[in-house]
């Protein structure tokens, strides 16, 4: 509601400007050519705007990349079963007895190999990164069915791990970020050496931040008595609430069920610190960019007072001058916005990672620039043009006519 109160005058003014574009007679070519006549100041201001918009879009693309990673990890027809109030797999534990009961629950979907459920264990292990720092990496032990439940995960090199042989498969995208993750190398974890026998790709999903192995091998090596989670596909996805109720109320189980998509949506909060930091940086830079635009437009008005006076003498009204200079400012900033959004494309697809404050482990994801994000960048530059140009345009429209005609 408060947002609307702030937005209303802004949108009304923008609407008036669009109307002025059609109804008022000062040609836009006048503004475009005036900008081009002052090439140096126009280009330097547009470059500053481009930088800010570029940073804005890149920050949004980080959050977008994280969101893609988590959203594409979950399926609406699958559920995760966790210890009550565990919130995340890492905090959860499910004893073997309970897991046995769970896996034969009648509401689970079955295929030729049996119930579509995978008992899994999740641990974290500190790994050195290519840049010399260390970070926690999630190690997921899973059953064969776990692979079937994640159809977005494809083997791109080697083969899948075999139970009992201390073998792991690693995400292809982690191989560049972590040394020693090449095929044929081995990882030291839980007092053993684990042979890397394959590399997989998960289409941007958060599994690309995890090392996978057999569930029993991981439990043995890390001395775990209980599983962390059960991933399962439901026979009737629309009856998830019924399944959750049954699992919660069953005295032998008393576990919590969450839809996979909801679980991963919760994990996207890992991007919040990036967003906050990014927004802070963007806010500061935006202030500077608005002042740069304002300064350029004030200089434009000061250098063209006689021109403004002449237009007024010829019969152009104050509001026509206001709209004209406001559009000039918008063109200036939007050209920077288009440039910045375009430049941001260069980071599209670059792999990076962050530490999730929810799971204290590394989350790999890619900068993801979408047309929507680029449009947001351009819209952002339009706002800068409006805010930065308003006062100079107002001054231009209010110059006393006799003074303006004497001006330089």
């Amino acid at each position, binding site marked *: 509601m408060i947002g609307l109160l702030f937005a209303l005058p802004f949108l009304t003014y923008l609407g008036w400007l669009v109307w002025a574009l059609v109804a008022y007679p000062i040609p836009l070519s006048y503004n475009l050519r005036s900008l081009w006549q002052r090439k140096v100041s126009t280009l330097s201001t547009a470059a500053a705007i481009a930088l800010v918009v570029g940073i804005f879009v890149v920050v949004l693309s980080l959050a977008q990349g994280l969101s893609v990673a988590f959203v594409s990890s979950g399926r609406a027809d699958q559920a995760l079963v966790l210890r009550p109030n565990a919130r995340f797999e890492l905090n959860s534990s499910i004893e073997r007895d309970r897991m046995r009961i769970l896996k034969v629950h009648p509401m689970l979907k079955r295929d030729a190999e049996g119930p579509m459920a995978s008992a899994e264990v999740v641990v974290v292990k500190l790994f050195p990164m290519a840049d010399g720092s260390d970070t926690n990496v999630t190690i997921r032990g899973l059953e064969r069915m776990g692979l079937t439940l994640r159809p977005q995960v494809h083997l791109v090199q080697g083969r899948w791990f075999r139970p009992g042989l201390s073998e792991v498969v690693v995400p292809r995208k982690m191989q560049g970020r972590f040394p020693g993750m090449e095929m044929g190398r081995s990882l030291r974890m839980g007092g053993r050496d684990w042979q890397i026998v394959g590399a997989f790709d998960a289409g941007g999903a958060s599994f690309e931040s995890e090392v996978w192995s057999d569930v029993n091998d991981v439990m043995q090596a890390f001395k775990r008595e209980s599983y962390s989670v059960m991933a399962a596909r439901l026979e009737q996805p629309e009856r998830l609430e019924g399944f959750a109720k049954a699992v919660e109320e069953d005295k032998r189980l008393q576990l919590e069920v969450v839809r996979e998509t909801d679980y991963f949506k919760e994990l996207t909060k890992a991007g919040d610190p990036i967003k906050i930091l990014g927004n802070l940086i963007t806010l500061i830079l935006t202030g500077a960019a608005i002042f740069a635009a304002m300064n350029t437009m004030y200089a434009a008005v000061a250098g063209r007072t006689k021109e403004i006076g002449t237009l*007024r003498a010829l019969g152009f*009204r104050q509001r026509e001058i206001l709209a004209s200079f406001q559009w000039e400012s918008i063109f200036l900033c939007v050209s920077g916005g288009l440039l910045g959004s375009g430049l941001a494309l260069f980071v599209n697809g670059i792999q990076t990672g962050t530490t999730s404050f929810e799971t204290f482990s590394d989350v790999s994801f890619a900068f993801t620039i979408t047309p929507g994000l680029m449009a947001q960048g351009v819209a952002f530059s339009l706002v800068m043009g409006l805010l930065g140009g308003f006062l100079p345009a107002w001054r231009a429209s209010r110059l006393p006519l006799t003074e303006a005609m004497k001006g330089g």
Partner: protein
Amino acid sequence: MNAADRFDLGGGEPVITLRDVAKSYWREDLEIPVLQGIDLEIPVGAYIALMGPSGSGKTTLLNLVAGIDRPTGGSLEVCGYDLNDLDDDQLASWRNAHVGFIFQNYNLVPVLNAFENVELPLLLTGAGRGERRDRVEQALSLVNLTDRMRNYPRQLSGGQEQRVAIARAIVTDPDLLVADEPTGALDAKNAEEVLALMARLNTELGKTIVMVTHDPKAAHHARHQIHLEKGVLDRTVEVNR
């Protein structure tokens, strides 16, 4: 040149009527009178040169007549309108319809070519593209610049720039042309050409012209000279040509 009766500019329907017009500026609490008690009738088709020493108020008087400035006292009727009754927007529309401006430094918009500069006042009239083109070409032809219509001001000589400015001043077919030192930035040859052109606009098209000038040669092209002294009308001189 004969001294005529004070402020008698001949008969004819007045296009400009000033009654006890005064203009003062204020510097903090200090009133600085620039014009006082101006009573004047200028008939349709007159060609007036406003003369006087610097600070005598001639440019201020021109600005009042052209609706660029407002008087602090008296009434001012120009082209059938009491300018005191018009608000800023109405005054802007009035200027567009009734007044053509010729400035000392031409005041062309540097990023627009000659055609576009002349077209500017027509953009406010609602005329269609075709009509605008015809009228701009006609105005430029009158000042002999049809071959330069795509040139930008920087590509024109001073004389050509002033001729473009004159074309812009007449393109809306206004009743009144106001000129502030129109030859002040020109050499003698170009000044003579511009003055001859203005004389033609007066005699052939019947435009009423009010021109501020210091230059006696320029003033000689007018039919009457009105001299101001310290903000009051001093005398009128009819020019024998």
